[in-house]
């Protein structure tokens, strides 16, 4: 029997994370009286964190090397490595948030971190897939892990409801995705993206196949009208999970989407218009719905829908400019969004019920209570709103610029109007923090744990640095985008 040759260096970071997941799972059984305790949980979390850091180092070490692949199914190019870095960054920040959050409500620490790492692996694989079956499998790896993580707060009705909804709708949309893959296979006789690009007929099967794949992506990215699950799931899931998946899933799905579109077998003119319309719908819907939310997590859920819409502008703009802008935005979004979620996790009442979780009123008078925290939160929110000189501003600037450069001027204008609308709900929180007195509705989980503090600090520094060194960083990402677009 001939074993296929496998170049394991292509998936070094993934292997590290998988190994870590196994270690974390086994860690439960180490020690004679394995009673769960916060210290124990911290030990497990530390192992997981080390694994993530190692994987990130492996990804960084690979940067700039020529692209290699495994049987045309997985590719390790710079685009993939940057994707790994975003996912690992989001994962590490989310893990720091879980550090002290998790022991509050569960004793199953190994399970949590193992599943968490598997979701990370799924995302990393997804962004490196160049073949539809691999893509689908990695999509499912991350999805299944996230379904469980969403419902991890088992005593909670809202968590169970969220997990069930996520699972049902996820399965529903996966079906469309795999059907789309089947149609493309029927059209071209291959599931490899290279072959699809070469052989696609451009007729009914191609169009329908691509459309159904888009449904699958749209679901993961929370694109309107496939977004309905997002607010419920983001609200019901433990905040660290929400923070992580709002960034990680998006990153993986966006990169995979770029890979699929490059090989779409359908002309740019066709899919770009479809995406432009989806982008418009998504941004507008997300921002409008966010205006009236009273729960911070729900507000950020709608905000994340809107941000998916902004990033779709970059996808619409097409390969090189659009891709580097989206990559930049993903990094910026990882910092500012997880930073915001980190502060939100501090505003949550322990043992909350879904209807009284972190409400925006909890932020009342935060500045008087914790000035530094309020300033930091304001920076995250202003960055999300796109205020210079923060990361979010440059992210939007590059996206809109990419749109204008490729002729989508009206789309850029829609994006800007949406930014203005979004400023309302971000600033509303800021106003509550700075200009109102604390009252009985305000709340702050204290003391601030070191892990959460570290996560907030990293997110903060990232938000500022990406704003200051926006140009050089974009150039860096631009090279990866150029290599990909030219390949």
């Amino acid at each position: 029997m001939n074993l296929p040759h496998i170049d394991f260096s292509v998936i070094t970071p993934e292997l590290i994370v998988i190994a870590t997941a196994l270690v974390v799972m086994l860690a439960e059984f180490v020690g004679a009286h394995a009673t769960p305790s916060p210290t124990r949980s911290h030990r497990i979390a530390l192992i997981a964190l080390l694994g993530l850091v190692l994987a990130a180092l492996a990804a960084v070490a690979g940067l700039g090397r020529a692209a290699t692949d495994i049987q045309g199914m997985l590719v390790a190019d710079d685009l993939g490595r940057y994707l790994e870095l975003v996912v690992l960054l989001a994962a590490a920040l989310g893990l720091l948030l879980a550090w002290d959050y998790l022991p509050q409500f569960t004793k199953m620490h190994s399970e949590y971190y193992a599943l968490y790492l598997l979701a990370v692996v799924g995302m990393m694989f997804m962004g490196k897939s160049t073949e539809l079956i691999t893509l689908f499998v990695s999509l499912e790896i991350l999805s299944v892990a996230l379904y469980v993580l969403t419902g991890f707060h088992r005593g909670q009705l809202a968590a169970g409801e969220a997990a069930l909804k996520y699972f049902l709708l996820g399965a529903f949309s996966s079906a469309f995705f795999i059907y789309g893959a089947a149609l493309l296979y029927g059209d071209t006789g291959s599931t490899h993206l290279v072959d699809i690009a070469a052989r696609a007929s451009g007729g009914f099967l191609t169009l329908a196949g691509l459309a159904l794949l888009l449904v699958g992506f749209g679901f993961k990215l929370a694109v309107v009208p496939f977004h309905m699950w997002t607010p419920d799931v983001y609200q019901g899931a433990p905040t660290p999970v929400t923070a992580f998946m709002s960034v990680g899933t998006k990153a993986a799905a966006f990169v995979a989407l770029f890979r699929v579109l490059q090989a779409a077998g359908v002309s740019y003119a066709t899919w770009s218009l479809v995406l432009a319309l989806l982008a418009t719908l998504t941004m507008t819907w997300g921002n409008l719905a966010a205006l009236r939310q009273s729960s911070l997590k729900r507000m950020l859920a709608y905000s994340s829908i809107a941000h998916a819409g902004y990033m779709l502008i970059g996808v619409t703009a097409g390969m090189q400019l659009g891709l580097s802008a989206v990559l930049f935005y993903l990094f910026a979004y990882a910092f500012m969004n997880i930073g915001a979620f980190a502060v939100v996790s501090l505003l949550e009442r322990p043992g909350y019920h879904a209807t009284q979780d972190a409400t925006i009123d909890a932020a009342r008078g935060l500045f008087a209570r914790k000035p530094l925290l309020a300033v930091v939160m304001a920076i995250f929110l202003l960055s999300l709103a796109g205020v210079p000189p923060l990361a979010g501003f440059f992210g939007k600037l590059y996206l809109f610029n990419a749109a204008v450069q490729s002729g989508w001027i009206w789309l850029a204008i829609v994006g800007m109007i949406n930014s203005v609308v979004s400023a309302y709900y971000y600033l509303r929180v800021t106003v509550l923090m700075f200009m109102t007195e604390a009252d009985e509705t305000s709340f702050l989980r204290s003391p601030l744990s070191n892990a959460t503090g570290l996560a907030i600090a990293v997110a903060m520094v990232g938000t500022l640095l990406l704003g200051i060194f926006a140009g050089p960083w974009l150039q860096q990402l631009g090279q990866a985008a150029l290599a990909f677009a030219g390949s």
Partner: protein
Amino acid sequence: MLNYSWLILLFPAVGALFNAFWGRRLGPRLVKLVANAAVLASFVVAVLMAISLQALPASAHGQFELTLWPWIHSGDFRVDLAMLIDPLSVVMALVITGVGFVIHLYAAEYMKLDDEHQPLDDRRYARFFVYLNFFILMMLTLVLANNFLQMYVGWEGVGLASYLLIGFWFHKPSAADAGKKAFIVNRVGDFGLALAIMWLFFLLGRDAGSLAFNDIFHALDGATLAVKSALGGVTLLLLLAATGKSAQIPLFVWLPDAMEGPTPVSALIHAATMVTAGVYMIARTHPLFELAPGTMTIVAWIGAITALMAASIAMVQTDLKRILAYSTISQLGYMFLAVGVGAYAAGIFHLTTHALYKALLFLAAGSVMHALHGELNIDLMGGLKAKMPRTYWQFLIGAAALAGFPLLAGFWSKDEILYFTFQQNKALYAIGLGTAFLTAFYSFRAVFRAFAGKPRDQHLYEHAHEQSQGMVAPLWVLAFGAVFAGLIGIPAAVGGLFGLEESHMLEQWLHPVFADVSLPSLPVVWELSLLAGSSLVALLGIYLAYARYVQQAGWTLFLQRLFTPLQSLLEHKYYVDELYTAVIVNPLRTLATFFYRFSDQTLIEGIVNGLGRVTMVVGGGVARLQSGMVGLYALSVLVGVVGLLALMFLVG
């Protein structure tokens, strides 16, 4: 060592941030320790900078540029965040941090009480020192900038600090108004600076690819005639900026009101440092001014007339701090006169000595104010010498230096200005000399009215008491400076008499900066006669004050009656405030009301609020679609699928 010059900026920045975040928790003791240590550390750095500057090789032309980090890079154009360390900026840094440190020390004690003589709460105490350190940071940014943009940052920064500190007692309407007035009047000048920088950018900066002083001045060599003639406009705008910050005609009106701020602020910002920024800026950009002789003449005349006008107003003021404020305007006028006639080193010399003795005067006045529970009216004082002997001596030394009493600091620097003016324009010289007479008179009027004679308000007098060591002791440092600082600028003619080879150290120190400027000189005899003339005028002024307020001689009363018609004009400060209100403020207000009522409230707000309301209503509708029913969610996906397929086939 010069590579570490950025430390001078770091210390006050850290001090301000530290106190801003933790000041309230630390309590006043640590707050003042941090704030004072920061300024002291900066002063040490400034001294080290001065020392290492001398060690530079001759090829460096006495200057050192330290680039901290790239700031704006756009195509060929680049502006870095960088420091220009040369004799001029180092002298300024020494004055700012040196005088600043003494004032910080004084303020640590002074600010224990608020404006109503009640103990000041810790929070506001901390805030005060945050502002004060922030001011030092911005002032240093201003003088150490190597380019126009960075100087502009400092320029605006000190304006902000000044605004915050004038209105420090913001619960008092007069203080809040004074802060606003200072800010708005300065805005006129700042706008001039902004325009000047933009214009310079188009004239020279664009081709030079930079806004750094060195690059711009370098580009002047190859500039066309058209560019050079446009410099007249640029320098006029720069002058406008300088008149705002340095309180000269026509923008001087804010400075007297600025006395609403706590006294250390008046001393630090509104006498010793910030208000000299205009003089510094003209000295720094003198290559531009040298090419615009017309502007130079205007600078000199503005300086001279402001000096005379402010000095004459100071003669009739009864508020001690206001006398000093007008005196500051007047002295700044001298500095303008100096730079206007091209005697930049003399201007900087006067700036330095003035910083010392005027800070001294203000702080001594602050001691009096504390002693009298906030009373500043000299008509109600008298006889304080007995109650506050040390403060009396300090004020006396300051006043004597201000009056140009021979051999004290102010004497040398003022005389040097008059000396250079004399060679250029006799009329300007006459105004300068006349002002010197008025200066001597009003400064000793203040001394005699406050400290000599009999108490005019027995109640106030009973309660007066000498201030604590914490406030009195630092002033001796300034008093020492007020007496001896003149020695750094003894003219060659006098130095020669005593066989000194090294005379006028300051001028030699500044020589690398002003090497391109050559000034004529007069025979030694002339120089000495001018010195004698100034001395005589100063002594005459002092004598007149003595005769009028101590001896109360009959002929002085006669003199006063002679000038009665003038007095009302002076007491109303030439009606300048009233003029500005009638000509500028009121018409603008009418116009603004119209725009506000009609275009803003009705038109624009209607549209904006309408849009906002529509958005909110739509948002509410969109959010309500989220019912929580899974079936509905699935339906939404299905609708999406159908829509997407349809769309694909439509376009594809």
